[in-house]
Structure formats: structure tokens, C-alpha cells
């Protein structure tokens, strides 16, 4: 049988996926900034209010201005959480590209890659912390001020889930970093054996 997949395609696939992730990040940033500066038209807010409060349309129309204000206030912690954790994602992506570049140069078990993995794991932990704090902040801020609200919003649940996933990713990267550090030592020993 003809073999379609070759091992050298793997790095290319990873590079393509990284590019895709970078595009997603860019799109997300545009959305969040639009949210913060209030660039969305009213029907988006209507829809959001309907989702959050589940109120009938007549009530919504009567109190739209107040509700929009309240919603903008409510989504702010999430938006700020994303914006604060954004640099971590940029650093993570940058390190990822650097590691990929090093792999292309056949320089896999190097000290630079270990350093990159270390930075990546800390970025994950940082992002996890920020997102968790944002979710808690949103709940506390939101829960007291407004009546008729579900105590734990879907957004907060998602944020906590993403934070947990990021923390786990950080943990995994950390273990891989420890393995890598060991591999670098072995590689050095091997290189200096005549």
C-alpha cells in the first residue's frame, strides 16, 4: 500500500495548526476589543439580555438602556480577563514558533527549547489564574447588583473550565520540560563522548 503520511509532514502540520491558532487569537482579540469599546449594534445586546435574564420582549424594550448598561458592566470582567491573559497567549505562541523553528534546524534537545517550555508552562498558569479570577470577579460583581439572575452564569462556567484546562496544560508542559532538561543533559553527554 502506498504510504501517504510521512513523518516529516508532522512538523508542517504542527506549523499549520499554530498558524490557525494565531488566526483564532487575532479574531478573538478583535471581538473582545469591539465588546469593550461598545462597537456592537443594539440587537446583539438585546439578544444577550434575553439570554442572561430571559425577560419578555416588551419589558426588554422598555428597559433597554438600563439593561445594556448593566450587561456591559457584567461582561467587562470577562473581557478584561481575556485582555489581561492575552499577552501570555502571545508569548506562548511565540515560544511555540521558536521551538518549531529549532526543530526545523534539527536542534531539538537544546537549552533554548527547555527555556521556551518553561516560559510556556508559566504562561499557561498565568492565564489560568487570570481567567479564574475574572470568572469569580464577574460572579461576585454581577450577583449582588442584579435581581433575577442565575447564580453561576454559563460564561463563568466556561471560564472556569478553560482555566482548569490551561492549568492542566501548564502542568503537562512542565513535566515535558523536565523530561527535556534530562534529554538535553543526555545529549550533551553523548556529544562529548569520543
Amino acid at each position, binding site marked *: 500500500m502506498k504510504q501517504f503520511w510521512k513523518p516529516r509532514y508532522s512538523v508542517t502540520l504542527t506549523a499549520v495548526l499554530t498558524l490557525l491558532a494565531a488566526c483564532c487569537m487575532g479574531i478573538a482579540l478583535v471581538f473582545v476589543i469591539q465588546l469593550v469599546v461598545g462597537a456592537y449594534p443594539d440587537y446583539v445586546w438585546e439578544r444577550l439580555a434575553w439570554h442572561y435574564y430571559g425577560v419578555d420582549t416588551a419589558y426588554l424594550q422598555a428597559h433597554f438602556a438600563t439593561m445594556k448598561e448593566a450587561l456591559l458592566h457584567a461582561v467587562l470582567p470577562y473581557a478584561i480577563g481575556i485582555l489581561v491573559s492575552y499577552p501570555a497567549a502571545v508569548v506562548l505562541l511565540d515560544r511555540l514558533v521558536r521551538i518549531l523553528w529549532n526543530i526545523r534546524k534539527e536542534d531539538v534537545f537544546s537549552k533554548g527549547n527547555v527555556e521556551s517550555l518553561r516560559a510556556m508552562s508559566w504562561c499557561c498558569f498565568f492565564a489560568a489564574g487570570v481567567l479564574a479570577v475574572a470568572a469569580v470577579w464577574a460572579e461576585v460583581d454581577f450577583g449582588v447588583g442584579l435581581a433575577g439572575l442565575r447564580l453561576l452564569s454559563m460564561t463563568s462556567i466556561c471560564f472556569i473550565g478553560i482555566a482548569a484546562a490551561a492549568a492542566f496544560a501548564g502542568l503537562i508542559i512542565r513535566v515535558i520540560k523536565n523530561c527535556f532538561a534530562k534529554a538535553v543533559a543526555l545529549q*550533551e*553527554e553523548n556529544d*562529548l*563522548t*569520543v
Partner: protein
Amino acid sequence: MIVINLDVLLAKHKTTSQELAEYLGITPANLSILKTGKAKALRLHTLNEICRFFRCQPADLLEYKEDELL
């Protein structure tokens, strides 16, 4: 620490490191690691070949020097 007296042996036998590298079947770069004392380990096979090349004993190549106490 262990000192590798490869340059002494090379001078004594009036051979070049290039020749030795060819005989051992290793690259000059690797031999240079051995000569400059950067090597972390020496394969018994390599030691055997070096002894065969110079017709000497391992003790002629390797020397133990007392580490300086800081």
C-alpha cells in the same frame, strides 16, 4: 581530574591528529574534543584503538591529577 595526554603522544610519535582521526574513524572535531579535554567520556573501544595506534598502555594516555581544593 583525569588529564588526556593525547598531544604529548602525538608529538612523541610525530603524527598529526588528522592521521589519528582517520585511523580511529572519527571526525577531527571529535578528536579535538578529546585533545582539548572537553570530553566527558571515552569509549573503551576508542581507548583500545588509540593504544593500538601508539602501541602504548592506557596509562600513557590517561593521567590522574589531584583536584585543587577550593
